[in-house]
């Protein structure tokens, strides 16, 4: 495979040395079968071991390796250099998150948001562990799409609402809320919808839709948020009409 050169313009930020984030350029050889992560690894191993970024699975499933590549949030392990380079490839940390060092950003806030949508099965009474639930293939299909989220945070990096108001629960956490709401084994919709019906909940979303464009797993969080708005409204109406009646 023919080798050519490409310039990686990588945003550097070193908290201990102070100062503002700056770009550093690296000219590296690449082949057509190299992804952006391979380029970063080449730099780390051969050129500059101080370059700092996260990665692990290199197969698009662990969700560690997100970065803004030429301004677009992407998984660096799933983005071919040949597809994004125009002489140079510009790599920034995922937008909208605090930078810890170089391409490493702080996601803790997301984990709190995830916890806030009750991301587990809720049952009123304990269940008989000796029996499996009956779930038909179409029941699984109903929540399958939202269950595919790898928590890569590309959608948050693409979301202008989250950028402007960081308290917004955001696309992935919303999609995961819907994933459990749609699961026939779950009885926790009410508390999730109550949570999402708050100021920091789904109503913040102005339906920009960028989240679904960048999502590498086709989770379609934008559609999930729209569905949640409908469900939250229905819940609200029901409570007005039938006070005291809990919804499932």
């Amino acid at each position, binding site marked *: 495979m023919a080798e050519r050169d490409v310039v990686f313009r990588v945003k550097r930020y070193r908290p201990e040395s102070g100062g503002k984030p700056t770009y550093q350029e690296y000219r590296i050889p690449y082949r057509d079968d190299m992804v952006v992560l391979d380029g970063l690894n080449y730099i780390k191993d051969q050129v500059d071991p101080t370059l700092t970024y996260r990665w692990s699975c290199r197969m698009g*499933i662990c969700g560690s390796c997100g970065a803004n590549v030429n301004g677009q949030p992407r998984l660096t392990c799933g983005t071919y250099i040949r597809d994004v380079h125009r002489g140079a490839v510009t790599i920034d940390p995922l937008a909208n998150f605090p930078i810890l060092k170089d391409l490493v950003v702080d996601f803790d806030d997301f984990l709190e948001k995830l916890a806030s949508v009750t991301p587990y099965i809720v049952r009123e009474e304990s269940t008989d562990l000796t029996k499996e639930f009956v779930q038909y293939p179409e029941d699984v299909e109903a929540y399958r799409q939202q269950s595919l989220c790898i928590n890569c945070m590309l959608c948050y990096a693409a979301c202008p609402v989250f950028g402007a108001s960081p308290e917004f629960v955001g696309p992935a956490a919303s999609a995961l809320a819907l994933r459990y709401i749609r699961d026939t084994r779950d009885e926790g919709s009410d508390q999730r919808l109550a949570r999402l019906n708050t100021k920091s909940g789904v109503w913040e979303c102005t339906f920009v839709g960028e989240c679904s464009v960048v999502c590498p797993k086709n989770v379609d969080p934008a559609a999930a948020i729209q569905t949640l708005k409908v469900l939250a409204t229905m819940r609200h109406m029901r409570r007005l009409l039938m006070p005291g009646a809990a919804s499932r």
Partner: protein
Amino acid sequence: MERAAFDIVIVGGGAAGLRAAIAAAQSDLDLSIAVVSKVYPMRSHTVSAEGGTAAVLRDYDSLELHALDTIKGSDFLADQDAVEFFVARCPKEILQLDHWGCPWSRDPDGRVSQRAFGGMSVKRTVFAADKVGFHILHTLFQTSMKFENIHRFDEYFVTSLIVDGGVCAGVIAIDLRGGRLVAINGKATILATGGCGRVYEFTTNGFIKTGDGMALAYRAGVPLKDMEMVQFHPTCLPGTGILITEAARGEGGYLINKEGERYMQRYLPTKMELGPRDILSRSMIQEIKAGRAFEGPYGPYLGLDLRHLGAATIDKQLPMVRELAEKYMGLDPIHEPIPVRPGQHYMMGGVSTNSTGETTLPGLYAVGETACVSINGANRLGSNSLSECLVFGEWCGLAAAQYAKQRVAYPRGTATRETLRREEARVFDGLMGRERGKETLAGVRVEMQQLMERDVGIFRDEAGLADACGQLAKLRDRFSSVGLADKDRVFNTEMTGVLELDFMLDVAASIAHSALNRRESRGAHSRTDFPARDDANYLKHTLAYRTDGAPRIDYSPVKITKWQPVARTY
């Protein structure tokens, strides 16, 4: 925080660590549990498991048969009492995961589906499409959020165990973001740190699988068991090592050579593509040697042909296979065979434990891929590993909870402070102080990986293994002059890379020496100079103990309950 104390400290947030954490947390809400992980738990490499997890759920199957398949697959090196314990508890774990919301694939009647897997004589493998590890991990991680007594230490890198008066008293870890060392004390400590695939060059394992827990225990005097038993998976993408799951063959995929022939008929006509992995990987190497492989930019490869399965089956049961082939090979398996070759995949060996996960160091437990109970013996059957993480994860979590409750006092401060000071001197003053010279982190790492690949791979012999042992000792010397360019304390991944290489060099030496000393062929350990299994001399577990020089090799008996070793024929 310089020091924190918990009832139980769990190192690792993969399937094994999280299952243990939930079991302990649920058993007593007053117990405090720390989950310490060098990556956010949902990044753990469990996430990459594709094919499925085994359990007896149907009338056509039996515990007896699952046990027999496992023991035969292990080439009779598994401990049969542990296997019986294991198979009996797998079904409950599937149901437990069902109740926690795991999106298992379902049959039309609403029951959990099961598929065929290599070496399993009936359809026994439960799955969630071909993203089983991903779904199990996220289900466990999200369920763990229910428990207020589980405290996470995300992105804390453990550098050492704390041993106080012959008892394990927790760990020392680098808080990667804070750039400082902290002591996390526990009345009980569980290592659930996964495998060590990255000691090899061509592996299905992620970058984080560097055998840290194995080395941590080994350094504290705990033996590593059966380290020569390294599984090579037959179907990995050339170049990257990305795995194409065995489920592709479970669903009916063929392996073909360049003549288009299903070559397994030459090696294992009764099982064909659904033979155990050790046999399939060796058959591939033989096809390659016979000149019947395809040639590609990354060397010879064979074909995994799914075309006859059709688009509907591929999309429903193997969506990730299609996604990976399209993304990383630029081809659509509906129309073209996928290029594959064998690569390191899994460690049967690991920290020596009993069925409750106890090691020889009181207060220290190990579970999951990092441990060796052993139910896998000389060759693991696909889909037994996730089940192992779940079954023994629960059991180990409960055992550690029991143990912690019996120990009234938290560990004393003296040994902890001393270990903290020692690690500060070793890591931040020592390693970080070293200037960069001729030897580099990447250079030594690649040499180790290539050496292991060449001499401690699928086929082995005395000369190669002896050479590998010598070379590894030299690499250990050269490692001591690897310096660091990054002198910042915060999130120093060059530093963690050096610490991981340090761990891997210990682990690699234990593998090579254990392999050198087992002069027979059994399961995945295939010696060209000793091609036969030798029960008279080697029906026993290898135990490697760390010394200042070469590891000391010892042995322990294999537990046989009712299946006497017979020739492993299929």
